[in-house]
């Protein structure tokens, strides 16, 4: 079981307000299924999926977090280990969109500087309940220089694409680093993954 069957390991994190569909997005991606009756996530959940990009097998280790404010002390300790963060809002919920700013600030405070970020406007299949236009999502993404996509876990729109784009961006970054600075490779070095500095650091925080 401990035999490595992948070339690289990327750690991703899903954040956003409660009820925007983080768990559903992850479930769609990892199990290709949808259910509207998910229990609320308490603390943090975890899924794995291996994808192939540019001939490399990449294992995605994806952490799904609870959205409610109370859990932030627990969940922000995961930010530092993340190489990519998906920030999810719900296009039928104005507040969840307004809070994007708050979540971005959280990322600034707690995540690595070079973390790849992506904003997802989820539930885009629910056109009759939409309150946040796609344009507003695009604008905020442009303003902060972040990738953006509208998704639907239910109708399976852009889920696969969102994860592979994020993974690709991380791959670009790590490839760039390999050329410039070999020491940085330790971040994705297979031997060190299980006890990367990210994890030991969050014990003490």
């Amino acid at each position, binding site marked *: 079981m401990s035999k490595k069957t992948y070339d690289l390991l990327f750690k991703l994190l899903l954040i956003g307000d409660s009820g925007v569909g983080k768990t559903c997005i992850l479930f769609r991606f990892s199990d290709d299924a949808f259910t509207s*009756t998910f*229990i609320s996530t308490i603390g943090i959940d975890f899924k*794995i999926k291996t994808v192939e990009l540019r001939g490399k097998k990449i294992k995605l280790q994806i952490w799904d977090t609870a959205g409610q404010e109370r859990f932030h002390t627990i969940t922000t300790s995961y930010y530092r280990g993340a190489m990519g963060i998906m920030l999810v809002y719900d296009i039928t919920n104005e507040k969840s969109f307004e809070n994007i700013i708050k979540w971005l600030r959280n990322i600034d405070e707690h995540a690595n500087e070079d973390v790849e970020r992506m904003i997802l406007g989820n539930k885009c299949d629910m056109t009759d309940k939409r309150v946040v236009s796609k344009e507003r999502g695009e604008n905020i993404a442009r303003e902060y220089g972040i990738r953006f996509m509208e998704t639907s876990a239910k109708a399976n729109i852009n889920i696969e694409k969102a994860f592979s784009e994020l993974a690709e961006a991380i791959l670009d970054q790590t490839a760039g680093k390999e050329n410039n600075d070999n020491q940085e490779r330790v971040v994705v070095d297979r031997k060190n993954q299980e006890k990367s500095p990210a994890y030991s650091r*969050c014990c003490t925080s």
Partner: protein
Amino acid sequence: MSAYKSRLKEFENLIIEDEIDIKKLRKFIHSGIPECAKYRALCWKLLFNYLDPKKKNWESHLERQRNNYNNLIKDLVIPPSCKNVDLSIDHPLSDNVDSTWSTYFRDNETFLLQIDRDVRRLLPDISFFQMPTAYPCKLVVDSETDIRLHRRVAPSVLSSANVERKGLGMKKINLIVKRAPENYEAMQKGQEANWEVVERMLFIYAKLNLGQGYVQGMNEIIGVIYYVFASNEDHAEFAEADCFWCFTNIMSEIRDFFIKTLDETDMGIRGMMNRLVRMLELKDVHVANRLKEQGILPQYYAFRWISLILSQEFDLPDVLRLWDSILADENRFDYLIYVCCAMIILIRDQILENDFEHNVKLLQNFPPMDINYVLNRADQLAESSST
């Protein structure tokens, strides 16, 4: 007489007394409640300290508590529009922060929305919470004005997206925005679903405990208690009021798990998780070291185990059986830690074999296992600690 029958007899003798020997009862219940469908609700009311051991006090106490609860509904759930308030000083557009209306809107934002979201995804594996209750709250369902809590937070937006255009003409105007098409749909007038009842209880609890408010996970705990009371014929009629007070009692013991600022204290959630780690180090140092080496923090799994009293880790019947033992223990939350520790030890061989990912998955999705087996192991751990 079979062992089961004699055990049942012993139990019935215990609860038939005018004054129930709670100490004996606790000890007895630790290994389960016989005829649990019939007796669990009563036993839990005793274990939650809601019912006094002296039976003669029950009637007046229950009447008082149920009345108190009804008054809370009148005071806190009925919106200002249904009350006699002076409209010249108190109206929906009032700037006064103390106006009943500004409180009304603030409550919607701060916790009702979250409660509504969570009660609609409560124990989706069983249909119970989506079903109507036989005893809806008359004040709410028979009222002429619409005072259901979930309507306060239902989005009522008329957006241009509702008008479908095809070619030149306007094709379809969809004025009515339907909400929550899934199974957790609200009931017609005169009826209400069990999740609506849970919503009301959580709303009142949050109103009475504003400092703490509503925290996700409370829904799971109150859901278990309400299920036990409401699915028992003899206890269903007043399940809501009784459940509310029992929930309040148990929350007074575990509220620290739900308060962020107390996370680092002994009774806070991190303190509890540290106790689990220390216990595991004592009971099975190999497994403890393995988890440590792999960087598997208790936050990854035990945060949910402890704060929800394991209610999400097993199927409901097993959760109920587990809670019998935990509630019956004099030191409930010490025992909870023993159970958590036993769970880890029971899958030790896999943990020692697995890599990081498989171990996190294993701990977050605890494998199906005979619950009595888990409890026996917890008892052994507790015994070996006391000697």
